[in-house]
């Protein structure tokens, strides 16, 4: 192991988290809509890095392919076909400020109460290894899944479980995508003759 490599990994992780947060802020706060599409793309690139750190390079690839490659480009086409520039956001009024402050205070109180109540909550790994009924059910599910696809989270295991355990949702997703394509065609084509 190279000395200082953990420091490098930490720095890369910090850059990825900062990319995600900054992309989300740009996407939400900028007034020009094209900048906010760029922010969404930036956020998705950061999310791909987070998926990579979570041990799933396949999902990182899919995130870039679907979100940056398809969703953002489609939204850019939508921006070009309409005039979506935001009007200047008006300033908050006094009542809105009061309600917002009240909401923040209440949710902070609820959160602090939940943290206080859950103070003895143990780490998930130990919670799942304890011999409770839920953990037993999980173990049983794990064994049957392992019999199908050596559950290591690899692309091969994902493919096998997509075509065995999750074959019905897989087909349903393809049906949903087909219906979405047809519906988009019909809806976007409908008003065209009126011009």
């Amino acid at each position, binding site marked *: 192991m190279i000395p200082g490599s*953990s420091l490098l990994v*930490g720095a890369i*992780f*910090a850059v990825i*988290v900062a990319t995600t*947060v900054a992309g*989300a*802020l740009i*996407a*939400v*706060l900028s007034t020009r*809509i094209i900048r*906010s*599409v760029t922010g969404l793309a930036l*956020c998705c690139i950061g999310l791909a890095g*987070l998926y990579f750190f*979570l*041990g*799933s390079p396949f*999902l990182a690839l*899919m995130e870039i392919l*679907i*979100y940056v490659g398809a*969703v953002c480009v489609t*939204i850019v*086409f*939508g*921006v070009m076909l*309409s*005039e*979506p520039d*935001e009007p200047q956001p008006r300033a908050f009024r006094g009542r809105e400020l009061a309600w917002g402050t009240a909401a923040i205070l209440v949710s902070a109180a609820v959160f602090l109460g939940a943290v206080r109540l859950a103070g003895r909550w143990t780490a*998930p*790994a130990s919670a*799942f290894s304890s011999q409770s009924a839920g953990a037993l059910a999980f*173990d049983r*599910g*794990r064994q049957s*899944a*392992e019999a199908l696809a050596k*559950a*290591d*989270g690899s692309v091969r*295991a*994902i493919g096998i*479980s*997509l075509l065995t355990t999750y074959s019905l*949702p897989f087909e349903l*997703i393809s049906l949903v*995508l087909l*219906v*979405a*394509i047809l*519906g*988009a*065609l019909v*809806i976007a084509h*409908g*008003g*065209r003759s009126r011009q």
Partner: protein
Amino acid sequence: MTPSLHNQAAVYLVVAAFLLAAGIYGLIRRRTFIGMLISGEIIFSAAALNVMALNRFAAPDPVVGQVFVLFIMGLAAAEVAITLSIIIAVYRNYRSIHSKEVSELEG
């Protein structure tokens, strides 16, 4: 020894919560449909990141979360296609996609 930062579930969960908060804020504050669509995509991403973090740190089978996130991505892509076609149809009829002006269905 505490695990390094990228091996803690809390970091991912906090980032996901931040994405959710940013998405909801944008959904409320945005006044064009495309801006609201982008905020909705951020909310989808927050849910996906949450599922992936819990899949990595708490689930016994690491495949389930990835399949789930793949389905989320497919649904998000379908949603974007439908929403953009609706936006274009609305723009043809109203010459505007500002949510203030498209208010015929308002009660």
